[in-house]
């Protein structure tokens, strides 16, 4: 009986809302949750040591609300962990205290996770609502723009966050695998958890706008903005996130083991290690085949000493480390190698996506003196087993492993590079050049809706009205936004169709005015 009931109303979703001294907007945020079309909710509000908001919570008189009133300010990560400890839902969703869900937010994401995908994480699109805060505290809305609408890309997620935390919903059980929010971080905690989720699941991108987040244009006292101004502290957070490795097994990421070859732990070796920490975003562990190293003194995470005889040859050191390596991919890296941005990821990406077997990739910057390579561990193990007396490169060749450099079309982030070039053309007013490039990207890469929107704008500016109209109608049939309504209205106005233009603009105005948010 209970099972049937649950099937009918759907599984419980726990919505976590940390808050700190924003009572004015919290009430609106809570309303937007409690008036969701999907009702089976557990809403956990954590007051992170701010002014008491008990009266606001009480005014809703809703049994789905759970209020944790903490007197001490311990940060957002701590608050989220506290909320997670109370969460009982099958799914977890998030809301900040000044943001809003649209009425279909939870229902849309639950439906996708329950019925439409094997992913355990889903995210929708949100409007960035830019506003001016008026003297009386009210918001004057200046725009609603879909700024972040990128399809899930795991490699990109490791490098850079592209999912808005408020739009995220995931299985609660995933937190057991990722581990809790990192309370040592004071910025980028959203990226940290999203990145860790990507170790265990794909993310389903839902092309619906299901809420909005507030972005005051002249408010620079936001905690997150202030904290980002301290560059050293900020970078420390970035490095912490990049070196975070959730407990294995990882179902979606294959590990990388870097065998670092040096005769001693001199300054040059320390500099190389530091560069690895600075520039590597793919998860890794470093293996140091040296007689004895005090890894603690290196103050670097993910470094493992492999004790070897001090007279061991280079090949012997590599073999000793290889026997301990946990990763599916191996990098052999000599001391002094020029480690910079994408030093390993360019070749690693090619290797991961390489359909032909038996290939190894020399890293960019590799020379005869400083030879560096990335390859599958199995191939290296087999080559060493078959030809233990040969040097590494010779043993690979003897085992029919083809060693080559990566090609330009094999490196990651092709989409972004093409997009950058096209945006540059656009910036320089070369609309006729930019428009077909956007179309090309839409046809050959992900992110179709985003690229088609840019193409429509470029065609309009290039005075190719027919093409702009064609694209714009297509987009507005699929997923209209304020921007695309405005663009199509301009197109209609160009053709003197004022009646249609007014209709489109009125729809845009309704979104801007929040007319669909009936609970407010």
């Amino acid at each position, binding site marked *: 009986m209970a099972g049937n009931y649950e099937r009918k109303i759907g599984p419980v979703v726990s919505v976590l809302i940390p808050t700190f001294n924003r009572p004015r907007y919290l009430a609106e945020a809570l309303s937007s949750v409690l008036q969701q079309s999907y009702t089976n909710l557990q809403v956990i509000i954590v007051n992170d040591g701010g002014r008491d908001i008990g009266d606001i919570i009480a005014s809703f008189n809703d049994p789905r609300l759970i209020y944790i009133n903490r007197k001490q300010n311990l940060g957002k990560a701590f608050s989220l962990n506290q909320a997670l400890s109370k969460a009982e839902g099958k799914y977890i969703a998030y809301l*900040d205290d000044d*943001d809003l869900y649209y009425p279909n937010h939870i229902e849309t994401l639950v439906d996708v996770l329950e019925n439409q995908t094997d992913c355990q994480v889903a995210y929708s699109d949100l409007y960035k609502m830019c506003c001016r805060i008026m003297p009386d505290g009210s918001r004057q809305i200046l725009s609603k*723009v879909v700024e972040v609408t990128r399809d899930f890309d795991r490699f990109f997620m490791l*490098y850079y966050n592209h999912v808005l935390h408020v739009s995220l919903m995931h299985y609660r059980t995933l937190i057991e695998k990722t581990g809790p929010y990192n309370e040592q971080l004071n910025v980028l905690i*959203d990226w940290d958890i999203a990145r860790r989720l990507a170790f265990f699941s794909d993310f389903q991108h839902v092309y619906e706008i299901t809420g909005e987040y*507030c972005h005051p244009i002249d408010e620079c006292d936001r905690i997150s903005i202030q904290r980002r101004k301290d560059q050293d502290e900020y970078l420390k957070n*970035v490095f912490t996130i990049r070196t975070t490795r959730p407990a294995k097994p990882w179902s979606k990421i294959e590990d990388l083991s870097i065998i670092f070859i040096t005769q001693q732990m001199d300054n040059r070796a320390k500099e190389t290690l530091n560069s690895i920490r600075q520039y590597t975003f793919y998860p890794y562990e470093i293996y140091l085949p040296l007689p004895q190293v005090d890894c603690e003194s290196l103050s670097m995470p993910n470094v493992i000493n492999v004790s070897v005889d001090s007279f061991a040859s280079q090949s012997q050191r590599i073999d000793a480390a290889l026997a301990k390596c946990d990763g599916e991919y191996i990098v052999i890296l000599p001391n002094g190698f020029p480690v910079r941005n994408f030093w390993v990821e360019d070749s690693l990406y090619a290797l991961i996506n390489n359909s032909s077997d038996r290939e190894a990739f020399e890293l960019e910057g590799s020379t005869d003196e400083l030879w560096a390579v990335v390859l599958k561990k199995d191939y290296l193990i087999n080559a060493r087993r078959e030809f233990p007396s040969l040097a590494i490169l010779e043993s690979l060749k003897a085992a029919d492993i083809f060693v080559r450099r990566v090609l330009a079309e094999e490196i990651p982030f092709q989409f972004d590079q093409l997009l950058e070039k096209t945006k540059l053309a656009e910036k320089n007013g070369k609309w006729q050049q930019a428009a077909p490039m956007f179309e090309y990207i839409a046809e050959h890469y992900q992110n179709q809706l985003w690229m088609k929107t840019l193409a429509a704008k470029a065609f309009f500016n290039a005075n190719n009205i027919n093409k702009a109209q064609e694209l714009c109608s297509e987009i507005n049939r699929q997923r209209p936004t304020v921007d695309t309504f405005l663009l199509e209205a301009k197109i209609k106005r160009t053709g003197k169709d*004022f*009646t249609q233009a007014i209709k489109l*603009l009125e729809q845009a105005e309704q979104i801007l005015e929040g007319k669909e948010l009936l609970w407010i």
Partner: protein
Amino acid sequence: MDITQENFDHTSKFGNESQNETIQQNDVTQHYLVLQELGDCCSSVGNYTQAQQYYEKAATLAPDEVGPYVGLGVVALQKNLLDDAEIAFRVACRLDGSCAKAYAGLAMIAQQRADYEQAFKMYLKSLELDSDNLIALLGLFQTSCQMGTFSKVIHYLEVYLNMHPGDISVMFPLAALYMRDGSFERSRKLLMSILTLDPDNEDAANLLEEVEHNLAQQKQTVM
């Protein structure tokens, strides 16, 4: 809201060109643009009351933008509220001293008040700022007719036609001015062009008849 892309330039291969912009122009102007467009469209279909409401709202969102004040001026002109129109156009001129539309608006007000000298001055100012402004051009022509002075108008009409060859609404007044100026051959050529583009144009046909009559008389006088 913690959008983690924002400060990633230190490692970004893509600089600011990825999907990580912070405050963009559109972030600040989008709502204003929607209202301004609504005002312009409503004005175009003659719904001036609605247009006025949109322009007023647009002005509160972007008080430094000239567009809403020009729109309010046009609406007031249409309602024949000349004083209100003048205030709106003057605000627009103050916000942007090079706003050709605002000067054209002030010129129209002066013209309606039968202050042709002031109207002529304002139309000229508008055309100096934007020689492409058809309303100012035709206004200048009308005012010239009202004042009986044409010398400066011909130049602006010629400039405009160079940019918009085939615009009959300007070709005809220019042909009329040529005729009035005694440049019958130039007038005839222009009228012939109009009739090629629009064979049913009766005004052009009538004027051509008159021009050809003058040309014939001229020839007779020479002989």
